[in-house]
């Protein structure tokens, strides 16, 4: 089992640790709902060190990334990050990743569960090209600070000014002699940053981190994977293995905004054809009646007929409603469409609603 550099931090704070894609990671510390609400009102610290961090150099790197990414990543300036998918020839989604352009290299941050698959995929398509890939997942840590207080807190902690750092941009810096990269991004629907820093520093900084976050009135408190999931769901963000899988393509996953069919990439032909013929199904948002939580795999019906399945569900802590995402047939994707979700033999009424369910007012 892999352990994050913050492992002992989690254990000392009494986190419940779970096996997540071969990593021992905290699912919660104090309670998922409490951690969720703290993120929406203050600032939470998430250990996301399990995410894969692959660095690519060599003169063909840009061409390789253009070939494997659904989104145009060929015109990125230094300091820019882009969310994109990587797909198979038939459009099946291999992973959703964030590509960042540094001065002398590119960084691909992928899901923990797909790290080996993406490493293999990149290696395969890099064959014969001038591309060198280094996996720095184990030697670095990745921490997300998310919430309305995140930016001022990080500015104070690192003694930096983030007012010029726009969403999906990053900058590098050093704290004493430690080098880090700070990205204005996240997976919660809140403003915030994600930091990548050497594993050794995090271990050194741990006592300070603990002292800072281990009091009742702390502004920054740790939050686990449980809250991360409920936060991303409210924000309508897809999760690999749920809304994104090899079984369907990025357009079906409602992520067409990160698919640039005007360039060539692996999976483009399949998706062009899909677009021309018309999609057969699509991910939608659902609002369920009552307070039950729909789970992945629950059947979605229209007038008694099965028309799809739930991919994720949550009883929204922020909105107090039962929300879900589901893959349904195209005839049932319009906002306001009345559907139902099967809880065993029981049927619960559901309405198709817009995603995201929760949006930060800017």
């Amino acid at each position, binding site marked *: 089992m892999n352990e994050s550099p913050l492992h002992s931090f989690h254990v000392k704070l009494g986190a419940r640790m779970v096996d997540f894609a071969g990593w021992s990671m905290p699912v919660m510390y104090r*309670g*998922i709902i409490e951690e969720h609400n703290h993120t929406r009102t203050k600032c939470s610290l998430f250990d996301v060190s399990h995410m894969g961090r692959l660095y690519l150099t060599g003169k063909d790197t840009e061409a390789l990334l253009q070939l494997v990414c659904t989104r145009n990543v060929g015109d990125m300036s230094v300091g820019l990050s882009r969310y994109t998918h990587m797909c198979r020839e038939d459009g099946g989604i291999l992973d959703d990743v964030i590509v960042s352009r540094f001065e002398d290299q590119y960084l691909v941050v992928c899901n923990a569960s797909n790290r080996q698959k993406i490493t293999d995929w990149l290696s395969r398509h890099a064959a014969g090209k001038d591309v060198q890939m280094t996996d720095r997942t184990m030697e670095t840590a990745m921490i997300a600070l998310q919430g309305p207080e995140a930016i001022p807190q990080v500015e104070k902690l690192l003694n930096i000014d983030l007012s010029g750092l726009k969403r999906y941009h990053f900058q590098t810096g050093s704290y004493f002699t430690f080098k880090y990269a700070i990205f204005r991004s996240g997976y919660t629907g809140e403003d915030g940053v994600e930091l990548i820093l050497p594993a050794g520093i995090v271990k050194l900084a741990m006592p300070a981190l603990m002292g800072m976050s281990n009091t009742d009135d702390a502004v920054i408190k740790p939050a686990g994977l*449980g809250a991360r999931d*409920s936060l991303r769901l409210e924000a309508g963000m897809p999760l690999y293995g749920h809304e994104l899988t090899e079984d369907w393509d990025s357009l079906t996953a409602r992520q067409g905004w990160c698919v640039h069919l005007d360039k060539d990439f692996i999976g483009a032909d399949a998706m062009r054809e899909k677009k021309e013929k018309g999609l057969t199904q699509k991910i939608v948002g659902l609002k369920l009646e009552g307070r039950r*939580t729909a*789970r992945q795999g629950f059947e979605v019906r229209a007038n008694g007929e099965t028309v799809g399945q739930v991919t994720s569900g949550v*009883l929204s802590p922020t909105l107090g409603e039962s929300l879900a995402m589901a893959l349904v047939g195209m005839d049932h994707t319009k906002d306001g469409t009345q559907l139902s979700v099967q*809880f*065993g033999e029981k049927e619960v009424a559901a309405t198709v609603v817009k995603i995201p369910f929760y949006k930060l007012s800017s």
Partner: protein
Amino acid sequence: MSVPNDRKYSDSHEWYLVDGNVVTIGITEFAAEELTDITYVELPAVGKEFAAGAAVGEIESVKATSDLISAIGGKVVAVNDELADHPELVNDDAHNRGWMVKIEASDLSPLDDLMDAAAYGEHVG
């Protein structure tokens, strides 16, 4: 963690409090903690009959849904209606106000195979 010694416990973390032939069933404090924040409890209709070992309800938490199993068969004579609006009672007071169903047992003998408080305490300790 408390394990009251006035009742029996199952492997699947239900508790059984016997009063005559009526058995009150709930889930243990240990189970409630494991499940994390409980958001909904689906309970059977009063009058419904179940065989021993059947799932009589469902417990939903932020993370997962799990069955409420009854080791005894019989007829449901009461359910805890308070849980409809306050499922958090299961987290706050699993062994008392968080009770779930009362079943009029057709046969109490399956309870003989369950654990007493000491054995259950060891089981989860």
